[in-house]
């Protein structure tokens, strides 16, 4: 019979088949017989299909299930042990990962003795195409020759179709476990991690991205050297990029460490490794994963990795607060472009964390820059540190003042921004050249003139900061100009205000510091009056003004009034701010005054209280604590001659100040001076002279040539030499000290008298009796008129004079 067209024939076949399978046996046979007569070909085919239909024992299901089993069934690692894979004999399983099981193996042909690691990839995980690509890339991966990267040696497919990879065997522990076991410190962990970065960097330079970085792939040997496994394997085995199926590798392998772009199937770059390194670093530092996946469902993991902000590492480990936190968070940024552009940059930032330098991973807030600037210059440019400290302190005051006065936030921001650009310009790490802080300040001063003319509120705040910074550097003229301008601006802008009071107090402090305390009293009293009117007599700000006034009076030598002012400050702060730095300072000031007056026991008790208050206010290292330690030390020595306790306190204070400010900072210099003074009195002249010389190193840089401290240290130096029996060597520094004091202090200041007495002693010891006598007399008289006859200082001067008169 003539066949119909193919589609028609197929349709008829289908219809006949459907009819036949539903018909009873007899009917079907009749149907087939009829058809065989008319269309034997069609009948034969129908008969075949019906036979197949009857024979069908669920073969499709079985084929599918069998294939699925083959793809999906995990292979027991133990079943591989002892088997040969290529030329390698598998000795024992040593690991089990997402990609497959890893075995320790050795070359069965004994060509090499060395053992290797053989990773048996899960069959079915990788398509034939990807395996082919892997074989193609094997060469490139094998050439990745770096001590931090486990070498890929070989790869292939077993006769029964299981793909495998042969790698250098690394005997090590996952980096997080290693750090945990060894109890590595934060610095050690960062250093170890930087070594990992270096290996990753090396691969990146060879255009190979790891794409599956996780602790299990970052082993650390017993020698503490990291080795990275599986470099580039995920990529090589990944799907063909052309199909857009780029995310198979990681999503299949390690979703916990996969980056958002990997999860979204977006292009994978070196930034992907930066992200995974961030996760590894997070684990290394905190022992925790950045995210929690409560249910472990795919959709949850994806949502969390792509959207949720991880907890900052410091939440788990407080010591990470600050830079390390920021570095980790930058590496973990959702958008690849917001992460470190290279692993090198990540590593560099970690180096900076370790070195206390500013990191790039941080919003550039002014306070941050300043604090980094300060810490960076700890051991280096002292002047910079001083300036930065002053800038920072000044800014904090400016900004809080701005808040108090309800300055709109925009203004505070502009102040901040302006200062930020100044510090930015000064950053040595930006252009690599050293810029002195004075240059920075001078540049800033010019910019204030040029840029802030029409913003008086901002100009006032900036000038006050600049003024305090210059003052901190001992550049008093420049400081005064800025402070006076700031004062004038604040007066005209705000009239009687906290800002005006603060400028007045800054001026008082400046005049006191430059040794012109007589010019400091008026501004200090005006500030006090303003603050009392504005806040009442019991306010902490008023205590601050009393404190400032007390310092002025003390510097003027008016110890009675100084004590009264300081007692007032203490009384107010005890109520208004019992755990404040202000109270600690007030107690210290009062103690110093009482000590100077000779009431040493009362002084020591106050110093102890000051230290307790400071520690309550700042449990960690802090300038106020260092100050309290330093002053208590001198008090302990003055009162009880307890050299052991005093020395211990001085060492603590010195270490803390060096740590906080660096050498050469005036505060460090003060501690050096006081410590040296104690040692001199104790009779340890050599050590004392050594410390005195250290203190004098800042002269002309951080300490102005004629700073009162310089004179005191010179005098101390002279006394050490006297103590060592070298009156000739003592004469020069004593003379210079006296000259400085005469030039810079009021003529009746007791320090002049004290210097005179000491110079007289050195002259007498050299036999220069004619010159010595008037010095000894003037010194004694001067001290007695200030302190009365009971003070130790006076007694000392009297003894010198007596020895001279008795011919000694």
């Amino acid at each position, binding site marked *: 019979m003539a066949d119909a067209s193919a589609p028609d024939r197929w349709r008829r076949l289908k219809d006949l088949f459907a009819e036949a399978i539903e018909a009873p046996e007899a009917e079907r046979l009749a149907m087939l017989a009829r058809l065989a007569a008319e269309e034997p070909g069609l009948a034969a085919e129908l*008969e075949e299909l019906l036979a*197949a*239909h009857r024979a069908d024992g669920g073969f499709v*299901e*079985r084929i599918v299930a069998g294939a699925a*089993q083959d793809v999906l069934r995990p292979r027991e690692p133990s079943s591989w042990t002892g088997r040969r894979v290529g030329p390698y004999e598998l000795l024992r399983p040593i690991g089990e990962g997402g990609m497959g099981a890893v075995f320790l193996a050795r070359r069965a042909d004994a060509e090499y003795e060395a053992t290797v690691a053989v990773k048996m990839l899960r069959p079915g995980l990788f398509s034939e195409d990807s395996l082919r690509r892997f074989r193609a890339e094997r060469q490139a991966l094998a050439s990745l020759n770096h001590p931090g990267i486990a070498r890929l040696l070989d790869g292939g497919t077993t006769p029964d179709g299981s793909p495998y990879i042969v790698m250098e065997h690394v005997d090590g522990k996952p980096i997080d476990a290693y750090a945990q076991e060894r109890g590595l410190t934060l610095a050690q962990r960062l250093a170890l991690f930087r070594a990992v970065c270096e290996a990753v960097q090396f691969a990146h330079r060879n255009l190979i991205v790891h794409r599956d970085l996780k602790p299990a792939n970052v082993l650390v040997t017993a020698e503490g050297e990291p080795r990275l496994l599986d470099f580039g394997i995920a990529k090589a085995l990944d799907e063909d990029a052309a199909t857009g199926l780029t995310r198979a590798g990681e999503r299949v392998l390690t979703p916990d460490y996969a980056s958002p772009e990997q999860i979204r199937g977006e292009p994978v770059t070196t930034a992907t490794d930066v992200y995974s390194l961030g996760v590894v670093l997070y684990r290394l530092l905190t022992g925790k994963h950045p995210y929690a996946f409560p249910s472990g469902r795919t959709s949850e993991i994806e949502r969390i990795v792509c959207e949720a902000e991880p907890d900052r590492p410091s939440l788990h480990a407080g010591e990470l607060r600050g830079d390390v936190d920021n570095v980790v968070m930058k590496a973990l940024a959702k958008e690849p472009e917001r992460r470190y552009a290279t692993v090198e940059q990540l590593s560099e930032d970690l180096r900076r964390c370790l070195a206390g330098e500013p990191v790039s991973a941080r919003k550039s807030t002014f306070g941050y820059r300043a604090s980094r600037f300060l810490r960076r210059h700890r051991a280096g440019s002292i002047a910079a540190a001083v300036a930065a400290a002053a800038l920072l302190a000044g800014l904090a005051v400016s900004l809080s003042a701005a808040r108090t006065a309800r300055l709109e936030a925009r203004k505070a921001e502009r102040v901040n921004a302006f200062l930020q650009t100044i510090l930015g310009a000064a950053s040595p790490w930006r252009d690599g050249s050293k810029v002195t802080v004075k240059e920075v300040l001078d540049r800033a001063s010019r910019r204030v003139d040029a840029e802030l003319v029409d913003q008086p509120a901002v100009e006032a705040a900036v000038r006050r900061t600049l003024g305090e910074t210059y003052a901190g550097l001992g550049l008093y003229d420049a400081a005064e100009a800025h402070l006076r301008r700031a004062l004038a601006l604040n007066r005209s802008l705000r009239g009687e205000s906290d800002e005006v009071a603060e400028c007045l107090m800054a001026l008082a402090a400046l005049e006191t510091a430059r040794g012109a305390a007589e010019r400091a009293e008026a501004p200090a009293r005006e500030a006090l009056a303003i603050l009392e009117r504005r806040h009442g007599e019991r306010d902490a700000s008023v205590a601050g003004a009393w404190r400032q006034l007390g310092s002025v009076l003390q510097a003027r030598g008016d110890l009675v009034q100084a004590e009264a002012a300081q007692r007032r400050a203490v009384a107010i702060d005890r109520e208004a701010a019992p755990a404040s730095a202000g109270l600690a300072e007030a107690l210290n000031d009062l103690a110093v005054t009482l000590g100077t007056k000779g009431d040493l026991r009362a002084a020591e008790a106050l110093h102890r209280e000051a230290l307790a208050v400071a520690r309550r206010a700042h449990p960690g290292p802090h300038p106020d604590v260092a100050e309290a330690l330093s002053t208590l030390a001198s008090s302990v020595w003055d009162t009880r001659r307890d050299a052991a306790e005093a020395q211990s306190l001085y060492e603590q204070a010195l270490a803390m100040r060096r740590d906080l400010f660096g050498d050469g900072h005036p505060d460090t210099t003060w501690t050096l001076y006081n410590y040296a003074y104690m040692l001199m009195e104790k009779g340890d002249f050599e050590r004392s002279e050594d410390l005195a010389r250290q203190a004098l190193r800042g002269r002309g840089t951080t300490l102005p040539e004629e700073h009162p401290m310089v004179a005191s240290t010179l005098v101390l130096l002279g006394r050490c030499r006297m103590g060592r029996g070298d009156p000739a060597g003592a004469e020069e520094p004593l003379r210079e000290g006296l000259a400085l004091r005469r030039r810079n202090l009021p003529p009746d200041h007791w320090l002049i008298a004290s210097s005179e007495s000491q110079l007289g002693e050195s002259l007498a010891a050299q036999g220069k009796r004619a010159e010595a006598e008037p010095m000894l007399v003037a010194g004694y008289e001067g001290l007695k008129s200030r302190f009365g006859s009971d003070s130790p200082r006076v007694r000392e001067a009297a003894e010198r004079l007596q020895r001279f008169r008795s011919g000694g």
Partner: protein
Amino acid sequence: MAEEPPAGGATERGRSGLDALVPEIYQELRRLAARAMSGERESHTLQTTALVHEAYLELSRIHELSVESRPRFLALAAEVMRRILVDHARARRAAKRGGGAVRVTLSDSLADPEATHDLVALDEALTRLAEQDAQLVRVVEMRFLAGMSVEETGEALGVSPTTVKRDSAMARAWLLRELTDGRRVGA
């Protein structure tokens, strides 16, 4: 509320809307397969149908697929599942040849399940069947790879359940005959 055009049904438009998801379905299935392998899952997920349904649950959530699109999605997933299995089987077969092993041939006995384990052969047969009648192939994929019910399959294809049943039987018979190529069964 403006909504996306319905993705379900057998219209070309509906199909093309979901087609964009094929790469994702592929990834999801591979990932689920890997997870099943790494022992994170109970053994019941070692079945393609379970994987396909799980993939649907995940991706429908991510893409906020409408309920109507489910049959069409599962149909696509079934196609993708077939590709994954075949890729794997081909890799194994190539390896066996490369490794010098004798290729396993179909047994004469149709009753022996081992005889029909050759997924590659099934795939090739399906490809030939598609030239004849693409709908039958899709019925097979949906019913046996995605584990879709007769009703769902009918819905996805826009045909009645009766047609699905008939097509399914026809396809199976035709495929079995193909796989036992040349051997006349029961004749």
